[in-house]
């Protein structure tokens, strides 16, 4: 009982923060006092009507902050799902098939690993229409390599273990063994990898938005910081404009990462199989 209370306490703060962000992302209309495109007087300081003031276009900053959660989390989570999905498939096949297939898949993985991601995304954004879809696809397609390597290493370790050899003896198909016998054992390494990729995708989204390489009409925390920078928010010392989205990114990434580390810590026995 006592250890479970301790674990619950460790998770509590991270879970609370993630819970708040998820609520902001799913029902922003119930939390934000105004719509994201409603306009008032520009550059207002915090007041009872606008607790974080207004931006250059007169939009309520608190309302923008709430509405921006959806896109920031969506880009992070969907990129994470895409990256870990590709990574798991490549890692499983590479470790299981071995031989020439292992060489091909790992060659591909090493190629993606050495690609400079941000410069590549900048070039892609210059030629393609920047927006959430491009960010999700690009971040997802360029972030699977570390997951693939971890999964492959684990498959190489697990494939000679008794329970996998037993499954082969019973005549189960490779697809069955990979999906039902090996994949569940890999969850303790896949889940932390997924949340870390999600966190790094959120940072990448903020970085690219700050560089002005995302759709300027979309509302995300990165775009809010970029707007504050390019529309005199920093010069006017409007910390209430750029600081809240910055804190949301930092707290979101920290909460997601700490959940990953706590999960990894709890499942260490299974990881060390």
């Amino acid at each position, binding site marked *: 009982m006592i250890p479970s209370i301790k674990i619950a306490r460790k998770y509590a703060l991270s879970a609370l923060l993630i819970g708040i962000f998820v609520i902001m992302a799913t029902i922003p209309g119930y939390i934000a006092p105004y719509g994201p495109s409603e306009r008032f007087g520009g550059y207002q300081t915090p007041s009872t009507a606008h607790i974080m003031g207004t931006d250059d276009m007169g939009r309520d900053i608190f309302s923008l902050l709430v509405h921006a959660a959806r896109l920031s989390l969506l880009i992070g989570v969907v990129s994470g799902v895409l990256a870990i999905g590709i990574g798991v498939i490549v890692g499983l096949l590479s470790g299981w098939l071995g031989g020439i297939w292992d060489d091909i898949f790992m060659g591909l993985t090493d190629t993606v690993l050495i690609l400079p991601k941000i410069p590549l995304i900048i070039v892609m954004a210059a030629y393609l229409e920047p927006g959430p879809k491009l960010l999700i696809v690009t971040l997802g397609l360029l972030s699977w390599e570390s997951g693939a390597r971890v999964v492959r290493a684990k498959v190489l370790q697990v494939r000679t273990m008794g329970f996998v050899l037993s499954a082969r*003896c019973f005549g189960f198909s490779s697809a069955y063994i990979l999906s039902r016998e090996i994949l569940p054992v890999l969850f303790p390494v896949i889940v932390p990898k997924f949340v870390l990729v999600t966190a790094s995708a959120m940072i990448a989204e903020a970085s690219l938005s700050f560089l002005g390489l995302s759709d300027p009409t979309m509302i995300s925390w990165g775009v809010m910081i970029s707007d504050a920078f390019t529309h005199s928010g920093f010069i006017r010392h409007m910390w209430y404009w750029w600081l809240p989205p910055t804190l949301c990114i930092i707290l979101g990434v920290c909460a997601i990462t700490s959940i990953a580390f706590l999960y990894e810590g709890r499942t260490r026995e299974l990881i060390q199989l």
Partner: protein
Amino acid sequence: MLILHADCIGKEYRKEGHKDLVFSSFSVDVHMGETVGLVGPSGCGKSTCARVLAGLEKPSRGRVLYRGKDIHTLTRAEWSQFRREVQVIFQDPVGSFNPTQTIGQSMTAVLKHVHVPGDEHENELAHVFHHVGLQMEILSRYPDQISGGQAQRAAIARGMIMQPRVMILDEPTSALDVSVQAQILHLLTYVQKEHKIAYVFISHDIDVVEYMSHTIVKMQEISCKMKK
């Protein structure tokens, strides 16, 4: 009747350009209902040989024949039959079960695989568990929540579901304490008498092998075959 025959098999692994020979020129005949003991010091290739005999690895040279046919040239249907009829019991009984599944889930997966209808699973499990002397209550436990002896009995029960003709027992008692070893050996003897299963019994313990086997093959002297 000869059921499994290894014809001058050898196994080597390629490591960084050079070949690492595990064992070579190993031949053995396994007859229906008999036990062939395979004995040798640690590292002589007994477990590798077991995997080759079970079709889990291809031999680098020689052939393994099951019912007179090379197991690596079998048709799909013949391979399915081979997979059903040749089972392996591994040294680490707990490690033979998936750590993320309960014993019941592992058992049910095999029952589904051999197309036993869902409403007959409980009766089938009760039957094999009674056979190996296990209580049904362990079905809800995970592998690390049962003893080594229970895990080895459960592994034998799971193998029995397939109704095998040959069982390759790779050091089945070496991870168990002496009293449990004796129980497992008695169980294996009883199962063999009941079902006329052929055993390939692998161990580094010559006394255990002598107790269990009709024929003994020493791996360090591969060409030497001793008849008891």
